Protein backbone atom coordinates (compact mmCIF):
# COMPACT_ATOMS: atom_id res chain seq x y z
CA UNK A 1 0.00 0.00 0.00
CA UNK A 2 1.41 3.25 -1.15
CA UNK A 3 -0.21 5.37 1.51
CA UNK A 4 1.19 3.18 4.27
CA UNK A 5 4.65 3.27 2.76
CA UNK A 6 4.44 7.03 2.43
CA UNK A 7 3.37 7.30 6.03
CA UNK A 8 6.28 5.14 7.13
CA UNK A 9 8.63 7.21 5.05
CA UNK A 10 7.41 10.43 6.63
CA UNK A 11 7.77 9.00 10.10
CA UNK A 12 11.13 7.47 9.37
CA UNK A 13 12.14 3.88 9.95
CA UNK A 14 15.23 1.73 10.30
CA UNK A 15 16.01 -1.66 8.90
CA UNK A 16 17.53 -3.67 11.73
CA UNK A 17 19.28 -7.00 11.97
CA UNK A 18 18.56 -8.98 15.11
CA UNK A 19 20.95 -11.68 16.16
CA UNK A 20 20.15 -14.25 18.79
CA UNK A 21 18.77 -17.69 19.45
CA UNK A 22 15.26 -17.17 20.74
CA UNK A 23 14.15 -14.66 18.14
CA UNK A 24 10.50 -15.68 18.25
CA UNK A 25 10.44 -14.78 21.90
CA UNK A 26 11.90 -11.46 21.06
CA UNK A 27 9.24 -10.83 18.41
CA UNK A 28 6.53 -11.76 20.90
CA UNK A 29 8.01 -9.42 23.46
CA UNK A 30 8.02 -6.62 20.90
CA UNK A 31 4.39 -7.27 20.09
CA UNK A 32 3.51 -7.24 23.77
CA UNK A 33 5.26 -3.89 24.20
CA UNK A 34 3.38 -2.49 21.24
CA UNK A 35 6.33 -2.09 18.95
CA UNK A 36 5.24 -2.33 15.38
CA UNK A 37 7.55 -4.54 13.32
CA UNK A 38 7.01 -5.15 9.66
CA UNK A 39 8.55 -7.07 6.79
CA UNK A 40 10.33 -9.50 9.04
CA UNK A 41 12.71 -11.67 7.02
CA UNK A 42 14.61 -14.69 8.18
CA UNK A 43 18.19 -14.45 6.96
CA UNK A 44 19.69 -17.44 8.66
CA UNK A 45 19.27 -19.53 11.76
CA UNK A 46 20.44 -16.79 14.11
CA UNK A 47 19.53 -13.60 12.28
CA UNK A 48 16.37 -11.89 11.16
CA UNK A 49 15.88 -8.59 9.47
CA UNK A 50 12.95 -6.32 10.18
CA UNK A 51 11.76 -2.78 9.78
CA UNK A 52 10.83 -0.71 12.76
CA UNK A 53 9.84 2.88 13.39
CA UNK A 54 12.18 5.33 15.08
CA UNK A 55 10.25 5.43 18.35
CA UNK A 56 9.87 1.67 18.38
CA UNK A 57 13.57 1.24 17.89
CA UNK A 58 14.42 3.09 21.10
CA UNK A 59 12.20 0.78 23.14
CA UNK A 60 13.48 -2.21 21.22
CA UNK A 61 17.07 -1.52 22.16
CA UNK A 62 16.30 -1.85 25.84
CA UNK A 63 14.28 -4.97 25.20
CA UNK A 64 17.04 -6.66 23.25
CA UNK A 65 19.31 -6.66 26.24
CA UNK A 66 16.70 -8.49 28.27
CA UNK A 67 16.17 -11.17 25.63
CA UNK A 68 19.83 -11.69 25.02
CA UNK A 69 19.69 -10.53 21.41
CA UNK A 70 21.84 -8.05 19.60
CA UNK A 71 20.36 -5.43 17.35
CA UNK A 72 22.19 -3.67 14.53
CA UNK A 73 20.96 -0.97 12.26
CA UNK A 74 21.63 -1.90 8.66
CA UNK A 75 19.86 0.98 7.01
CA UNK A 76 18.18 4.22 7.98
CA UNK A 77 15.32 5.32 5.87
CA UNK A 78 12.75 8.05 5.73
CA UNK A 79 12.28 11.73 5.87
CA UNK A 80 13.70 12.48 9.35
CA UNK A 81 17.05 10.94 8.42
CA UNK A 82 17.06 12.74 5.12
CA UNK A 83 16.25 16.02 6.82
CA UNK A 84 19.08 15.44 9.26
CA UNK A 85 21.49 14.80 6.41
CA UNK A 86 20.39 17.95 4.62
CA UNK A 87 20.73 19.96 7.81
CA UNK A 88 24.37 19.08 7.89
CA UNK A 89 24.83 20.35 4.36
CA UNK A 90 23.47 23.85 4.80
CA UNK A 91 25.31 25.30 1.85
CA UNK A 92 23.52 22.93 -0.49
CA UNK A 93 20.20 24.17 0.78
CA UNK A 94 21.28 27.78 0.49
CA UNK A 95 22.54 27.13 -3.02
CA UNK A 96 19.26 25.56 -4.06
CA UNK A 97 17.38 28.49 -2.59
CA UNK A 98 19.54 31.05 -4.33
CA UNK A 99 19.37 29.26 -7.65
CA UNK A 100 15.60 29.34 -7.40
CA UNK A 101 15.67 33.05 -6.66
CA UNK A 102 18.12 33.63 -9.48
CA UNK A 103 15.86 31.78 -11.87
CA UNK A 104 12.90 33.86 -10.76
CA UNK A 105 14.82 37.08 -11.18
CA UNK A 106 16.23 36.04 -14.54
CA UNK A 107 12.83 35.07 -15.83
CA UNK A 108 11.32 38.40 -14.84
CA UNK A 109 13.18 40.19 -17.60
CA UNK A 110 11.89 40.58 -21.09
CA UNK A 111 14.45 39.11 -23.42
CA UNK A 112 12.88 39.39 -26.81
CA UNK A 113 10.18 41.49 -28.36
CA UNK A 114 8.35 40.49 -31.48
CA UNK A 115 6.15 42.79 -33.46
CA UNK A 116 3.27 41.42 -35.45
CA UNK A 117 0.46 42.90 -37.46
CA UNK A 118 2.35 45.77 -39.03
CA UNK A 119 2.17 46.30 -42.74
CA UNK A 120 2.93 49.88 -43.67
CA UNK A 121 4.70 50.96 -40.53
CA UNK A 122 8.10 49.32 -40.47
CA UNK A 123 9.23 47.08 -37.65
CA UNK A 124 12.20 49.32 -36.93
CA UNK A 125 9.93 52.28 -36.53
CA UNK A 126 7.77 50.47 -34.02
CA UNK A 127 10.83 49.10 -32.24
CA UNK A 128 12.29 52.60 -32.00
CA UNK A 129 9.04 53.91 -30.62
CA UNK A 130 8.89 51.05 -28.13
CA UNK A 131 12.42 51.89 -27.07
CA UNK A 132 11.44 55.47 -26.54
CA UNK A 133 8.48 54.63 -24.31
CA UNK A 134 10.62 52.30 -22.21
CA UNK A 135 9.92 48.86 -23.58
CA UNK A 136 13.09 47.19 -24.75
CA UNK A 137 14.82 43.87 -24.40
CA UNK A 138 16.30 43.59 -20.93
CA UNK A 139 13.68 45.55 -19.08
CA UNK A 140 12.10 44.01 -16.01
CA UNK A 141 8.50 43.03 -16.54
CA UNK A 142 7.47 44.09 -13.06
CA UNK A 143 8.78 47.60 -13.55
CA UNK A 144 6.89 48.40 -16.72
CA UNK A 145 3.24 49.22 -16.95
CA UNK A 146 2.00 47.45 -20.06
CA UNK A 147 -1.19 49.50 -20.39
CA UNK A 148 0.76 52.72 -20.06
CA UNK A 149 3.23 51.62 -22.71
CA UNK A 150 0.43 50.72 -25.06
CA UNK A 151 -1.09 54.16 -24.69
CA UNK A 152 2.20 55.95 -25.07
CA UNK A 153 3.05 53.92 -28.16
CA UNK A 154 -0.26 54.90 -29.69
CA UNK A 155 0.56 58.53 -29.04
CA UNK A 156 4.03 58.08 -30.47
CA UNK A 157 2.91 56.45 -33.69
CA UNK A 158 -0.15 58.04 -35.22
CA UNK A 159 -0.53 55.40 -37.88
CA UNK A 160 -1.51 52.76 -35.35
CA UNK A 161 -5.10 52.21 -34.36
CA UNK A 162 -4.51 49.70 -31.58
CA UNK A 163 -1.60 48.21 -29.72
CA UNK A 164 -1.70 45.10 -27.57
CA UNK A 165 1.26 43.84 -25.61
CA UNK A 166 1.22 40.31 -24.35
CA UNK A 167 3.90 38.91 -22.08
CA UNK A 168 4.64 35.25 -22.40
CA UNK A 169 7.38 34.47 -19.95
CA UNK A 170 10.49 36.27 -21.12
CA UNK A 171 9.01 37.06 -24.47
CA UNK A 172 6.85 40.05 -25.32
CA UNK A 173 4.50 39.99 -28.25
CA UNK A 174 3.50 43.39 -29.52
CA UNK A 175 0.47 43.23 -31.71
CA UNK A 176 -0.44 46.30 -33.68
CA UNK A 177 -3.34 47.24 -35.88
CA UNK A 178 -2.75 50.00 -38.37
CA UNK A 179 -5.18 52.71 -39.25
CA UNK A 180 -6.88 52.25 -42.56
CA UNK A 181 -6.41 55.54 -44.40
CA UNK A 182 -9.71 57.24 -45.11
CA UNK A 183 -10.06 58.19 -48.79
CA UNK A 184 -9.60 61.88 -49.12
CA UNK A 185 -12.85 63.63 -49.54
CA UNK A 186 -12.91 67.12 -50.75
CA UNK A 187 -15.49 69.34 -49.16
CA UNK A 188 -18.21 70.69 -51.42
CA UNK A 189 -17.15 74.32 -51.06
CA UNK A 190 -13.51 73.75 -51.84
CA UNK A 191 -12.52 74.13 -55.46
CA UNK A 192 -11.06 71.00 -57.01
CA UNK A 193 -10.03 69.27 -60.21
CA UNK A 194 -10.78 65.78 -61.36
CA UNK A 195 -7.76 63.70 -62.16
CA UNK A 196 -7.30 60.21 -63.50
CA UNK A 197 -6.99 57.44 -60.94
CA UNK A 198 -5.69 54.99 -63.57
CA UNK A 199 -4.24 54.83 -67.04
CA UNK A 200 -6.82 54.46 -69.77
CA UNK A 201 -8.55 55.63 -72.92
CA UNK A 202 -11.34 58.10 -72.32
CA UNK A 203 -14.74 56.87 -73.38
CA UNK A 204 -17.16 59.38 -71.90
CA UNK A 205 -16.78 62.48 -69.80
CA UNK A 206 -19.73 63.68 -67.75
CA UNK A 207 -18.66 66.90 -66.12
CA UNK A 208 -21.45 67.95 -63.79
CA UNK A 209 -19.44 70.88 -62.66
CA UNK A 210 -16.25 72.26 -64.13
CA UNK A 211 -14.77 72.17 -67.60
CA UNK A 212 -13.72 68.94 -69.25
CA UNK A 213 -10.22 69.09 -70.65
CA UNK A 214 -10.21 65.67 -72.29
CA UNK A 215 -12.48 64.16 -74.90
CA UNK A 216 -13.38 60.71 -76.09
CA UNK A 217 -10.40 58.78 -77.42
CA UNK A 218 -7.79 60.62 -75.41
CA UNK A 219 -5.17 58.50 -73.75
CA UNK A 220 -4.58 59.53 -70.18
CA UNK A 221 -2.17 58.28 -67.60
CA UNK A 222 -2.60 58.24 -63.86
CA UNK A 223 -2.71 61.69 -62.33
CA UNK A 224 -3.64 63.55 -65.53
CA UNK A 225 -6.20 66.31 -65.22
CA UNK A 226 -9.55 65.35 -66.70
CA UNK A 227 -11.89 68.08 -65.54
CA UNK A 228 -10.62 71.40 -64.32
CA UNK A 229 -12.15 73.45 -61.60
CA UNK A 230 -10.60 76.66 -62.91
CA UNK A 231 -13.11 78.19 -65.25
CA UNK A 232 -11.94 80.92 -67.54
CA UNK A 233 -14.37 82.69 -69.85
CA UNK A 234 -13.78 85.63 -72.08
CA UNK A 235 -16.25 87.76 -70.23
CA UNK A 236 -14.86 86.88 -66.84
CA UNK A 237 -12.12 89.12 -65.56
CA UNK A 238 -10.81 86.55 -63.11
CA UNK A 239 -10.94 82.77 -63.38
CA UNK A 240 -13.69 81.16 -61.40
CA UNK A 241 -12.80 78.38 -59.05
CA UNK A 242 -15.43 75.71 -58.71
CA UNK A 243 -15.82 72.39 -56.99
CA UNK A 244 -15.87 70.15 -60.06
CA UNK A 245 -17.40 66.77 -59.98
CA UNK A 246 -18.68 64.21 -62.41
CA UNK A 247 -17.92 60.84 -63.91
CA UNK A 248 -15.21 60.03 -66.37
CA UNK A 249 -15.54 56.64 -67.98
CA UNK A 250 -12.48 55.20 -69.57
CA UNK A 251 -11.30 51.95 -71.00
CA UNK A 252 -8.64 50.50 -68.81
CA UNK A 253 -6.54 47.47 -69.39
CA UNK A 254 -5.56 44.80 -66.92
CA UNK A 255 -2.76 42.54 -67.90
CA UNK A 256 -1.32 39.37 -66.44
CA UNK A 257 1.26 36.90 -67.69
CA UNK A 258 1.41 33.36 -66.41
CA UNK A 259 3.69 30.54 -67.36
CA UNK A 260 3.73 26.80 -67.03
CA UNK A 261 6.16 24.10 -68.13
CA UNK A 262 4.97 21.57 -70.70
CA UNK A 263 6.78 18.69 -69.12
CA UNK A 264 6.35 17.52 -65.59
CA UNK A 265 8.93 15.71 -63.57
CA UNK A 266 7.18 12.76 -62.02
CA UNK A 267 8.78 11.23 -58.94
CA UNK A 268 7.85 7.74 -58.01
CA UNK A 269 9.20 6.29 -54.78
CA UNK A 270 10.95 2.99 -55.17
CA UNK A 271 10.42 2.03 -51.56
CA UNK A 272 14.06 2.38 -50.59
CA UNK A 273 14.57 4.49 -47.49
CA UNK A 274 17.50 6.00 -45.71
CA UNK A 275 17.41 7.76 -42.37
CA UNK A 276 19.70 10.39 -40.95
CA UNK A 277 19.61 11.80 -37.45
CA UNK A 278 20.69 15.22 -36.40
CA UNK A 279 20.84 16.96 -33.08
CA UNK A 280 20.10 20.63 -33.08
CA UNK A 281 21.25 22.75 -30.18
CA UNK A 282 20.34 26.35 -30.67
CA UNK A 283 21.44 27.07 -34.22
CA UNK A 284 24.08 24.37 -34.26
CA UNK A 285 23.34 21.12 -36.03
CA UNK A 286 25.21 17.96 -35.25
CA UNK A 287 24.89 14.87 -37.37
CA UNK A 288 24.49 11.88 -35.10
CA UNK A 289 24.40 9.07 -37.59
CA UNK A 290 23.28 7.95 -41.00
CA UNK A 291 26.32 8.58 -43.15
CA UNK A 292 26.13 9.18 -46.89
CA UNK A 293 22.87 9.08 -48.80
CA UNK A 294 23.04 6.03 -51.08
CA UNK A 295 20.65 7.41 -53.73
CA UNK A 296 21.16 9.78 -56.63
CA UNK A 297 17.58 10.98 -56.86
CA UNK A 298 15.57 11.28 -53.72
CA UNK A 299 13.08 13.39 -51.84
CA UNK A 300 13.66 14.50 -48.28
CA UNK A 301 11.19 14.31 -45.47
CA UNK A 302 12.12 16.18 -42.37
CA UNK A 303 10.57 15.59 -39.00
CA UNK A 304 11.52 17.26 -35.78
CA UNK A 305 11.25 15.65 -32.42
CA UNK A 306 11.41 18.08 -29.57
CA UNK A 307 12.17 16.41 -26.27
CA UNK A 308 9.66 18.50 -24.39
CA UNK A 309 7.83 21.76 -24.41
CA UNK A 310 7.90 24.33 -21.74
CA UNK A 311 5.44 27.18 -21.61
CA UNK A 312 4.71 27.07 -25.32
CA UNK A 313 8.33 27.89 -25.98
CA UNK A 314 10.35 25.53 -28.08
CA UNK A 315 13.15 23.96 -26.22
CA UNK A 316 16.40 24.77 -28.03
CA UNK A 317 17.40 21.13 -28.24
CA UNK A 318 15.77 19.07 -30.93
CA UNK A 319 16.35 15.85 -32.75
CA UNK A 320 15.88 16.14 -36.47
CA UNK A 321 15.12 12.97 -38.36
CA UNK A 322 15.68 13.24 -42.09
CA UNK A 323 14.23 10.50 -44.18
CA UNK A 324 15.40 10.08 -47.75
CA UNK A 325 13.11 8.25 -50.11
CA UNK A 326 14.63 7.04 -53.32
CA UNK A 327 12.60 8.04 -56.37
CA UNK A 328 12.56 7.25 -60.06
CA UNK A 329 12.24 10.41 -62.10
CA UNK A 330 10.36 10.36 -65.37
CA UNK A 331 9.40 13.24 -67.61
CA UNK A 332 5.79 13.33 -68.61
CA UNK A 333 4.51 15.56 -71.41
CA UNK A 334 1.41 17.42 -70.48
CA UNK A 335 -1.56 18.16 -72.68
CA UNK A 336 -1.09 21.65 -74.14
CA UNK A 337 -4.82 22.41 -74.28
CA UNK A 338 -5.05 21.46 -70.65
CA UNK A 339 -2.22 23.86 -69.79
CA UNK A 340 -3.84 26.67 -71.70
CA UNK A 341 -7.07 26.16 -69.81
CA UNK A 342 -5.28 26.30 -66.49
CA UNK A 343 -3.33 29.41 -67.49
CA UNK A 344 -6.53 31.09 -68.61
CA UNK A 345 -8.41 30.42 -65.43
CA UNK A 346 -5.43 31.39 -63.30
CA UNK A 347 -5.05 34.70 -65.11
CA UNK A 348 -8.75 35.49 -64.87
CA UNK A 349 -8.71 34.74 -61.20
CA UNK A 350 -5.74 36.98 -60.60
CA UNK A 351 -7.09 39.87 -62.62
CA UNK A 352 -10.54 39.68 -61.05
CA UNK A 353 -9.00 40.65 -57.76
CA UNK A 354 -7.78 43.92 -59.24
CA UNK A 355 -10.86 44.86 -61.23
CA UNK A 356 -13.38 46.84 -59.16
CA UNK A 357 -16.78 45.29 -58.79
CA UNK A 358 -18.73 48.05 -60.51
CA UNK A 359 -16.56 48.02 -63.65
CA UNK A 360 -17.92 46.64 -66.89
CA UNK A 361 -15.83 44.12 -68.75
CA UNK A 362 -15.70 44.89 -72.45
CA UNK A 363 -13.28 42.45 -73.87
CA UNK A 364 -10.76 39.86 -72.88
CA UNK A 365 -8.00 38.31 -74.93
CA UNK A 366 -5.34 35.82 -74.16
CA UNK A 367 -2.23 35.12 -76.23
CA UNK A 368 -0.15 32.02 -75.81
CA UNK A 369 3.43 31.67 -76.85
CA UNK A 370 5.98 28.99 -76.16
CA UNK A 371 9.61 29.41 -75.27
CA UNK A 372 11.39 26.07 -75.13
CA UNK A 373 9.48 23.97 -72.57
CA UNK A 374 7.48 26.76 -71.07
CA UNK A 375 4.16 28.10 -72.25
CA UNK A 376 3.34 31.71 -71.44
CA UNK A 377 -0.15 33.05 -71.41
CA UNK A 378 -0.62 36.82 -71.65
CA UNK A 379 -4.09 37.93 -70.72
CA UNK A 380 -5.51 41.36 -71.25
CA UNK A 381 -8.92 42.36 -69.98
CA UNK A 382 -10.47 45.56 -71.23
CA UNK A 383 -12.73 47.23 -68.75
CA UNK A 384 -14.92 50.28 -68.73
CA UNK A 385 -14.81 52.08 -65.42
CA UNK A 386 -15.02 55.41 -63.70
CA UNK A 387 -11.53 56.79 -63.19
CA UNK A 388 -12.50 60.13 -61.70
CA UNK A 389 -10.73 61.28 -58.58
CA UNK A 390 -11.05 64.66 -56.96
CA UNK A 391 -8.01 66.73 -56.14
CA UNK A 392 -7.92 70.06 -54.37
CA UNK A 393 -6.67 73.01 -56.33
CA UNK A 394 -3.74 74.67 -54.67
CA UNK A 395 -4.39 78.35 -54.78
Amino acid sequence: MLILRLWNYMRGYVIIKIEGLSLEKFINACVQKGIYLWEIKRINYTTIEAKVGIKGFKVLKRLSRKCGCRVYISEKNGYPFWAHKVKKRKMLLIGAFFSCILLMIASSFIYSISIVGNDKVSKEEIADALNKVGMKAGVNRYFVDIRDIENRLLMELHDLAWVGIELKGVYAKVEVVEKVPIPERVDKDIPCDIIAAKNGVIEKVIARNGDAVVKKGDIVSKGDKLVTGVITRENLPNPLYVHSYGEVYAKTYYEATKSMPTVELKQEPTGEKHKKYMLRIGSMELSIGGGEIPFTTYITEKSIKAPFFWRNKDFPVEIIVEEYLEVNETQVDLNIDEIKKVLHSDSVQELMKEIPAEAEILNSTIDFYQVEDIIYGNMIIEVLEDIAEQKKIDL
Partner: protein
Amino acid sequence: MKRTENIKKNIADALELPQDIVLDLPKITMVGNLQLCVENHKGIIEYTNNQIRIYTKLGILRVLGKNLLLKNIVLEEIVIVGEIKQVEFYD
Protein backbone atom coordinates in the same frame (compact mmCIF):
# COMPACT_ATOMS: atom_id res chain seq x y z
CA MET B 1 -14.85 -25.23 31.32
CA LYS B 2 -16.22 -27.41 28.57
CA ARG B 3 -19.74 -26.57 29.61
CA THR B 4 -19.26 -22.81 29.49
CA GLU B 5 -17.80 -23.20 26.04
CA ASN B 6 -20.89 -25.07 24.91
CA ILE B 7 -23.19 -22.43 26.35
CA LYS B 8 -21.25 -19.73 24.62
CA LYS B 9 -21.43 -21.59 21.34
CA ASN B 10 -25.19 -22.02 21.69
CA ILE B 11 -25.71 -18.37 22.47
CA ALA B 12 -23.56 -17.40 19.51
CA ASP B 13 -25.58 -19.70 17.30
CA ALA B 14 -28.88 -18.43 18.61
CA LEU B 15 -28.03 -14.75 18.27
CA GLU B 16 -25.99 -15.25 15.08
CA LEU B 17 -23.02 -13.52 16.60
CA PRO B 18 -19.69 -14.07 14.92
CA GLN B 19 -18.11 -17.08 16.53
CA ASP B 20 -14.55 -15.81 16.43
CA ILE B 21 -15.51 -13.00 18.80
CA VAL B 22 -17.70 -14.93 21.17
CA LEU B 23 -15.48 -17.99 21.37
CA ASP B 24 -12.20 -16.11 21.12
CA LEU B 25 -11.11 -18.16 18.12
CA PRO B 26 -8.48 -17.19 15.58
CA LYS B 27 -9.79 -15.86 12.29
CA ILE B 28 -7.66 -16.97 9.38
CA THR B 29 -7.97 -15.29 6.03
CA MET B 30 -6.09 -16.35 2.94
CA VAL B 31 -5.59 -14.64 -0.37
CA GLY B 32 -4.87 -17.48 -2.76
CA ASN B 33 -1.63 -18.97 -1.61
CA LEU B 34 0.07 -15.60 -1.43
CA GLN B 35 -1.06 -14.14 1.84
CA LEU B 36 -2.36 -15.41 5.09
CA CYS B 37 -3.75 -13.29 7.85
CA VAL B 38 -4.27 -14.61 11.35
CA GLU B 39 -6.33 -12.47 13.65
CA ASN B 40 -6.57 -13.10 17.35
CA HIS B 41 -3.33 -15.02 17.81
CA LYS B 42 -1.51 -15.63 21.03
CA GLY B 43 2.06 -15.23 19.88
CA ILE B 44 4.60 -16.66 17.54
CA ILE B 45 6.46 -19.85 18.41
CA GLU B 46 8.70 -20.49 15.48
CA TYR B 47 9.62 -18.55 12.43
CA THR B 48 11.78 -19.81 9.58
CA ASN B 49 11.65 -19.41 5.84
CA ASN B 50 9.70 -22.63 5.39
CA GLN B 51 7.65 -22.90 8.52
CA ILE B 52 5.83 -20.58 10.84
CA ARG B 53 4.16 -21.76 13.99
CA ILE B 54 1.67 -19.53 15.73
CA TYR B 55 0.09 -20.16 19.07
CA THR B 56 -3.69 -19.78 19.14
CA LYS B 57 -6.53 -20.75 21.42
CA LEU B 58 -7.16 -23.95 19.49
CA GLY B 59 -3.57 -25.02 19.77
CA ILE B 60 -0.71 -24.42 17.39
CA LEU B 61 -1.29 -23.25 13.87
CA ARG B 62 1.45 -24.37 11.52
CA VAL B 63 1.98 -22.71 8.14
CA LEU B 64 4.28 -24.46 5.72
CA GLY B 65 5.55 -22.90 2.53
CA LYS B 66 8.40 -21.28 0.75
CA ASN B 67 10.04 -17.89 1.29
CA LEU B 68 7.70 -17.00 4.09
CA LEU B 69 7.90 -13.46 5.34
CA LEU B 70 6.16 -11.74 8.22
CA LYS B 71 4.67 -8.76 6.53
CA ASN B 72 3.60 -7.27 9.78
CA ILE B 73 2.93 -8.37 13.29
CA VAL B 74 0.84 -6.62 15.91
CA LEU B 75 -0.98 -7.71 19.01
CA GLU B 76 -4.12 -8.96 17.23
CA GLU B 77 -2.88 -9.82 13.82
CA ILE B 78 -0.11 -11.51 11.89
CA VAL B 79 0.17 -11.19 8.13
CA ILE B 80 2.32 -13.76 6.36
CA VAL B 81 3.24 -13.46 2.71
CA GLY B 82 5.04 -15.97 0.54
CA GLU B 83 4.20 -19.22 -1.17
CA ILE B 84 1.92 -20.99 1.24
CA LYS B 85 1.54 -24.74 0.83
CA GLN B 86 -0.07 -26.06 3.95
CA VAL B 87 -1.97 -24.74 6.94
CA GLU B 88 -2.77 -27.05 9.83
CA PHE B 89 -3.76 -27.13 13.48
CA TYR B 90 -2.22 -29.53 15.90
CA ASP B 91 -1.92 -29.82 19.66
